[in-house]
């Protein structure tokens, strides 16, 4: 088992000088080492991974028996009751974690208590909202073979189906007119136990049930351009309209829906391990030993010699050795406050002021291409949706500034997972990239398309409306920035996105100078692992 540093160091901001070595950039399924301009660049380094809990199973059991602002779970379980357990889908954590997954640990602990209480009527649902159905292997990985084999063959473990007209109910409407829609089985249960993994501060809380078990009617209340542009950012709960909307829906669930027992967990950022060949990716460049440098060189050379298919296969097979750092259970909002503290403890890095340019190396993985292909739309989501919005207070880049993202951006789509994305890219983006116009002219048609609906329900396809939500995810950044440049991307694909292609980082900085001037300041978000900038 790998050993972490005894006292994990917090994140910090490095001012780039002549002594600064080349900085590691993720570049899809590969890496680049880039030199940032001296004297006017800074690099935000994430904190080192926090220590995992010594006894995660013990901590889970303790949380179930001593919940926050709720009764102990055993007291809520009675024979003859209708119980539903819902859990976060394939989009968390990223990358998928090594077995046993946190959800497996929690669900087994819950079922131990459920069995003791003699509850027979149990359903277990992957709360995927409008994401794609999980495959058998993915379900087994998430909940473990024991739970899968006990429930799936009897039809008691399954993917949420938001388009089943018999299986969705409207619980009510918020004072803002937002419909609250829920999976019928969950809505009619005596108790819903939600098992969550909080990777970033957007996850969890009422979003778990209000979005995860909802359908298009409920999700469109907050997955729209207006909400996204008023979520500054959606990672900062106090400034997020997305958060406020989900919490309003939560009020309706509280009054008209089932009782919810929320279980939330946090994991550290030990993405590539403390030891082993990939651990070099988590180290600070000036601390790379000769072995690290040799490993990195060999790895990069090998990757560059491979086909993209083989590179993708290697990276997608990686399972992160994440360790659980906290678990809390009980009343939704009380639990989520504690969870958010832990997420911030791992991710937040204090940063002063903004710069003209932000640079970021984008990895091979977003929440929406696990075991799949990162198409150009998902490249945009990862950069302008997630990385740009990983801040509290203000973005690291000033309004009207430039974002430079590094990613190959291949014009490639997974035909099974992302069929509606193909049509969105070919048809909608060829016409316009304005999110408002896209929402008004095209969303309904894709959302109600019978073929996409069929693929969502019976295949492993994201819902027809999903690429629209991806586009809206980046709408705050698109409105805020004056230019977006992608380094090393397929020029045609980049231009279709409405961005500018550049071959190298230096070229991109040169292009940016047309907008922000020749002595522009730069912030680089170092990744892996992820961080959240606390900008004052």
């Amino acid at each position, binding site marked *: *088992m790998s050993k972490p540093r005894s006292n994990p160091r917090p994140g910090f901001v490095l001012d780039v000088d002549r002594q600064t070595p080349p900085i590691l950039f993720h570049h899809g399924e590969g890496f680049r080492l880039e030199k940032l301009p001296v004297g006017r660049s800074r690099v935000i380094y994430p904190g080192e991974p926090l220590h995992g809990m010594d006894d995660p199973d013990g901590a889970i059991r303790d949380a179930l028996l001593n919940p926050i602002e709720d009764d102990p779970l055993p007291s809520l379980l009675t024979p003859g009751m209708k119980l539903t357990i819902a859990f976060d889908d394939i989009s968390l954590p990223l990358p998928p974690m090594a077995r*046993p997954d946190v959800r497996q640990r929690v669900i087994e602990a819950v*079922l131990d208590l459920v*069995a*003791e209480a003699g509850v027979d009527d149990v359903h277990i649902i992957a709360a995927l909202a409008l994401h794609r159905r999980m495959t058998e292997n993915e379900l087994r990985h998430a909940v473990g073979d*024991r739970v899968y084999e*006990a429930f799936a063959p009897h039809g008691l473990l399954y993917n949420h189906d938001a388009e089943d007209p018999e299986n969705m109910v409207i619980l009510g409407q918020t004072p803002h007119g937002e419909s609250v829609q829920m999976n019928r089985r969950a809505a009619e249960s005596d108790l819903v136990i939600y098992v969550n993994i909080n990777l970033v501060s957007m996850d969890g809380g009422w979003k778990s049930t209000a979005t995860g078990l909802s359908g298009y009617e409920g999700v469109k209340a907050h997955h729209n351009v207006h909400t996204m542009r008023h979520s500054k950012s959606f990672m900062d709960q106090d400034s997020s309209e997305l958060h406020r909307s989900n919490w309003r829906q939560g009020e309706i669930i509280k009054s008209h829906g089932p009782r919810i027992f929320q279980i939330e967990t946090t994991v550290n950022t030990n993405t590539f391990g403390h030891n082993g060949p990939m651990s070099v990716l988590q180290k600070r460049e000036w601390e790379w030993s000769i072995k690290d440098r040799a490993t990195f060189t060999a790895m990069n050379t090998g990757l560059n010699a491979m086909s993209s298919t083989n590179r993708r296969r290697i990276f997608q097979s990686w399972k992160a050795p994440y360790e659980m750092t906290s678990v809390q259970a009980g009343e939704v909002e009380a639990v989520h406050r504690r969870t958010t503290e832990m997420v911030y403890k791992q991710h937040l890095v204090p940063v002063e002021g903004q710069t003209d340019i932000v640079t970021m190396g984008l990895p091979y993985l977003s929440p929406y291409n696990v075991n799949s292909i990162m198409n150009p739309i998902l490249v945009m989501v990862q950069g302008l949706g997630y990385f740009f919005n990983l801040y509290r207070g203000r973005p690291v880049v000033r309004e009207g500034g430039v974002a430079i993202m590094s990613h190959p951006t291949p014009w490639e789509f997974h035909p099974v997972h992302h069929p509606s994305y193909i049509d969105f890219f070919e048809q909608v983006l060829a016409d316009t990239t304005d999110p408002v116009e896209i929402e008004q002219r095209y969303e309904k048609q894709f959302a109600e398309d019978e073929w996409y609906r069929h693929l969502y329900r019976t295949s492993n396809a994201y819902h027809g409306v999903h690429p629209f939500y991806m586009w809206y995810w980046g709408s705050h950044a698109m409105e805020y920035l004056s230019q977006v440049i992608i380094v090393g991307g397929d020029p045609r694909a980049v231009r279709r996105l409405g961005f500018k292609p550049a071959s190298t980082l230096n070229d991109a900085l040169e292009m940016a100078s047309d907008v922000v001037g020749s002595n522009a300041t730069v912030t680089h978000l170092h990744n892996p692992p992820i961080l959240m900038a606390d900008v004052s």
Partner: protein
Amino acid sequence: MGWLRFVLDPPSVPSGVDKKPKTPSTGVYYDTEWSRSLPARLIRRATTVALMKPVIGFFGAPKVIGADRLKDVEGPVVFAANHHSHADTTVLLTTIPSHLRHNLAIAAGADYFFPNRLVGAASALFIGAIPIERQRLSRLSVANTMDAVAAGRNLLVFPEGGRSPDGWGAGHRPGAAFVAMKSDVPVVPVYIDGTGNILPKGKNWPKRSRCAVVFGSPLSPIDDEDARGFATRIESKVAELADEFANGWWQARRNAGSGSTPVLSGPEAGAWRRRWLLGPKPGGRRTTPGPKRWPRI
């Protein structure tokens, strides 16, 4: 070759002199310290990988369940397993997760595995055996096992004290629980299924048959539990693992919750009924009728 005889033959003892008592060196007195040396460990690891694993793979193809429960376990631990066959040791030596397997000592019957120095040496070298007395919890047996655990080794114990004579389990003796409590290490309950069909008691040659190993989560004593109480709890956990294997994890949890986990000791019944209730042996003889024989009636 006089020098060779000088070396090998013991000296004669003069009269009037007290003969130095002979220190026993077999059975429970066999010193296995040397088997913890690096060369011995390397030989043991090579034998396990190159010989035992392929042989067990051929004869038993063991299915391993629950190894993920040991992912966070760092050792040392005491493994407590039910016991059907001599094949149990080799099955466990090849299926216990590698981070715990390569530093494993087996508590083996001193009378059977250490009857003389040659057999004792082979037992210590190839399977990492340490001698214990099976019939009673002797001070030396306890010392041998606790020394191994104190040296950082994981310990495998068969608390039933011997192989099952009829396929059902015997009650657990408190030795494993006692050693774990005294050494302040957890106990990992283990259920082994099917090895009695590979190498039953009384047979000398194995035959192919499926087997399985189910690992449980580590257990520690609770409250004021004594060794007997802890041993009883370990035994019930092994029974739950047997239930998990036979009826699935969820059914086993429900049975445990309602106190209806089937016991491993089987029914109070005569020999043929106890065998009958074990069910048919896998891979046995033809169960469908063969061709009609003369005379035809």
